[in-house]
């Protein structure tokens, strides 16, 4: 390893990056755009779900029940019906997510101290929302119900007491966004040299394989680090995600993760010869799994066991877990060291593999 040669490579690479302001601009703007889109779009919170009501009882009690629903922020009265067919039509058309059917004789049943029965129809096409709405609806009905339960249950939500989705989405996005762009940029930067043939000029020179790779790694690693810093700033300042743990720990882990993502880009470039293939491969092994198998959108513990093992291949999982732990739970090294060790080990393995695969040969 010769410092002067690495410096020459760094200087050349930095100049090339700076002379291509469009690519650099896209590299810096895309993560922010992605963060804004996902920060606003991915929300599992239910607010003002359209509610349909078929009140066949028409008693003060039934009107009180409907009012209890509409008084909450979860439901908004959208339609009222006079027969059951209309309810079915509305649910099928999707104009309401939930329909409340109050049968005749509700008030009388209450006077006779019988358990009154009402029906709640839910649109289950998106199961997560349906579950939430069902839960809210039961809680709302229970509050009007007559009997005091024998055991009082008081539920407290920890770590994200306001249950804001964005608090949970943004720390996860740190891991996903970093998998989306740095591997792609790095892989393209090397494969482009293969396509133009300039890499042959580099091969026939004293510059060694590791020197070449470090010259690519550092500038793109720096860009990736800028990306993570920007994304974090926007997450904490704009989305007001509360930070429970240590920012230093998050940044340090982010640094390791950045090297890992850039390393994956290097690895992709060693096995591909064209920019198109490099792009597809980078998407398949980095971006896609980081969405699906990192626990960002779908919890890993609910997956089948075989798939849970599969998720262990992708580093995004370790970082998403760590990021949420630090941001939401205020966890420190004592709890998260296994994730950090796995990330460091993963990064080292990726580099070793890339250096081993990279040869100064054209075929």
């Amino acid at each position: 390893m010769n410092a002067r040669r690495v410096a020459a490579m760094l200087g050349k690479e930095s100049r090339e990056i700076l002379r291509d302001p469009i690519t650099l601009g896209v590299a810096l703007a895309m993560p922010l755009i992605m963060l804004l889109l996902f920060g606003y779009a991915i929300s599992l919170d239910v607010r003002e779900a359209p509610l349909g009501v078929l009140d066949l009882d028409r008693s003060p009690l039934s009107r009180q029940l409907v009012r209890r629903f509409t008084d909450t922020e979860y439901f908004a009265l959208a339609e009222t019906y006079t027969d059951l067919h209309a309810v079915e039509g509305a649910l099928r058309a999707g104009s309401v997510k939930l329909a409340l059917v109050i049968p005749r004789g509700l008030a009388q049943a209450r006077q006779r101290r019988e358990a009154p029965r009402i029906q709640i129809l839910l649109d289950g096409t998106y199961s997560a929302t349906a579950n939430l709405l069902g839960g809210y609806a039961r809680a709302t009905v229970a509050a009007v119900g007559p009997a005091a339960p024998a055991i009082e249950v008081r539920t407290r939500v920890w770590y994200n007491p306001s249950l804001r989705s964005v608090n949970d989405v943004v720390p996860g996005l740190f891991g996903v966004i970093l998998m989306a762009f740095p591997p792609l940029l790095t892989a393209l930067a090397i494969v482009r040299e293969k396509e133009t043939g300039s890499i042959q000029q580099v091969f026939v020179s004293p510059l060694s394989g590791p020197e070449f790779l470090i010259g690519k790694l550092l500038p793109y690693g720096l860009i990736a680090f800028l990306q993570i810093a920007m994304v974090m700033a926007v997450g904490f300042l704009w989305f007001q995600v509360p930070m429970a743990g240590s920012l230093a720990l998050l940044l340090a882990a982010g640094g390791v993760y950045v090297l890992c993502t850039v390393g994956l880009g290097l690895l992709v470039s060693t096995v591909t010869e064209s920019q198109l293939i490099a792009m597809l491969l980078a998407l398949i092994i980095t971006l896609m799994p980081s969405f699906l198998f990192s626990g960002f959108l779908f919890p890993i513990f609910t997956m089948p066991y075989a798939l849970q093992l599969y998720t262990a291949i992708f580093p995004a999982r370790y970082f998403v877990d760590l990021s949420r732990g630090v941001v939401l739970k205020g966890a420190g090294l004592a709890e998260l060291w296994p994730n950090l060790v796995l990330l460091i080990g993963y990064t080292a393995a990726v580099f070793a593999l890339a250096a081993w695969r990279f040869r100064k040969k054209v075929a």
Partner: protein
Amino acid sequence: MDSALSQAQPPVVASALARRFGKVVALAGVDLSVAAGERLGLVGPDGAGKSTLLQLMAALLDPGAGHCRVLGFDTVREAAKIQARIGYMAQGFTLYERLSVDENLAFAARVRGVTGDTYRERRAALLAMAGLEPFAARRERDLSGGMRKKLALCTNLIHEPPLLLLDEPGLGVDPLSRRELWQMLDGLRARGVTLVVATSYMDEAERCDRVAFLDRGRLLALDTPAALRARAAGTTFTVTRTAGGALPPATLPGVRSIKHLPDRLRVQLEPGRNGSAAQRLLAPLGTVQAVEPDLEDVFTLLAPAGEDAAAAAWPAHPVAAAASAGGIRTVGLTRRYGAFTAVDAVSLDIPPGEIFGLLGANGAGKTTLIKMLCGLERPSAGSATVAGIAVTGARGALHRAVGYMSQRFSLYPDLRVAENLRFFASAQGLSGARARAAIAAAAAESGLDAGDPRRAGSLSGALRQRLALACAVLHRPRVLFLDEPTSGVDPLSRYRFWALIRNLAATGMTVVVTTHYLEEAAFCQRLGLMQRGRLIASGDLATLRAQADLAADAGVEAVFLAHLRQTA
């Protein structure tokens, strides 16, 4: 230490060197040694293994069998030592286009440990030699093709390598720049630099001490240019056709090839034929004169008939005739890009059925002129009609009347030969029986087997070129534009390609060709010389010679340079 080594043993020694890529044998057991200070030329048809041999020498490839020692080091075990010492210029433009001339040079120097005063001295000397000093701050991509190649050479000379490997340095470079490139190489010779250069230009091969002729991975001949030419001695004649004389048949017994030049035929006999018998054979065609063979004749002699065997039987006189002929007329045709004038008031008149050659340096405006005539670019001023259709008018009619084959042979590499043909036929609105007939006719005219099961990407350059030609003439255009159709193709295939062009022109098709191979200008009836967007001269070769006050036997290059100098 290195110089002591190179004194002791030849800089390059290849023994039974072989390499295959999958099933394709790129190099099959080549034995070769290059002496210190020697200049070795590698020639041969497309796919002969020239680039593979150079890459094996540069330790960019590991041999499949045999071994190669370069500067005394083994290319497999001591690759790093070789790569640190030699210079290697790959095919095409392989510098960093976003970096300036100076930055490219500095990068090459710094990775090779050339710094401080040594660097400053060499930089100054190299830039002066290449004439690049005024452009030191210019970005590489803004240079002309010739300058880019010269800069690439400079980056490979910054560490003063004892051995330089060059892969087609003249490809895509105009004649003037190519001359300057070779002047630089001549300068290196005095310093004892060993040079191995792959080329498709026979004049470049002529400048080498020895020439290695490769074909399909085998070394067919290795000798001095003079000794190689001696092999073809007594086999070459020119025939000046008597007016109204009979056209020669497509094949004659004992005749290897007949080249049709506008004013005469150049005939090459099979080796070992009796000269006087040949004269008798050729006499009915016109006045026969024996001429000295050149390296191109040797090439024709050595290249065995292979995949081109089918093509050799192309129809001498094509069956179909172009619908209705049409020429080209332009008046003050101009195209500006901002403040830059790419084509400057060009007025041309090309009659139907003529083969018109456009010559000029890189960036002289040839491609822009052709694009305007095809309706791909709007003129900024002036007017032009192609086959009677105004280029500024309806594109549909113009596109039906013209065929265009671009520098890069715009084919679909992943489609088979027939699939490419069918696609271009449907793009021209041909379908069913009409499409099949058009494909059959175009394939026959292009010397192409339409049933070839291979994909376009895996064809040799010569076959890709013919496929591109077939695709361009499917709709029987009245005017055909060919933009550097023969770039990077070996001399024999180039010549065969020209025979196809001649046949097309004989049907009344007007053909406009650009080329960097000046010897090809001899195939054109008239030439137009372009410089900085202007048409500085046009006419047949004799007229151009007379305008430049040159002798009647002056070559195309001399004519070209004389006209450039006159206007400069």
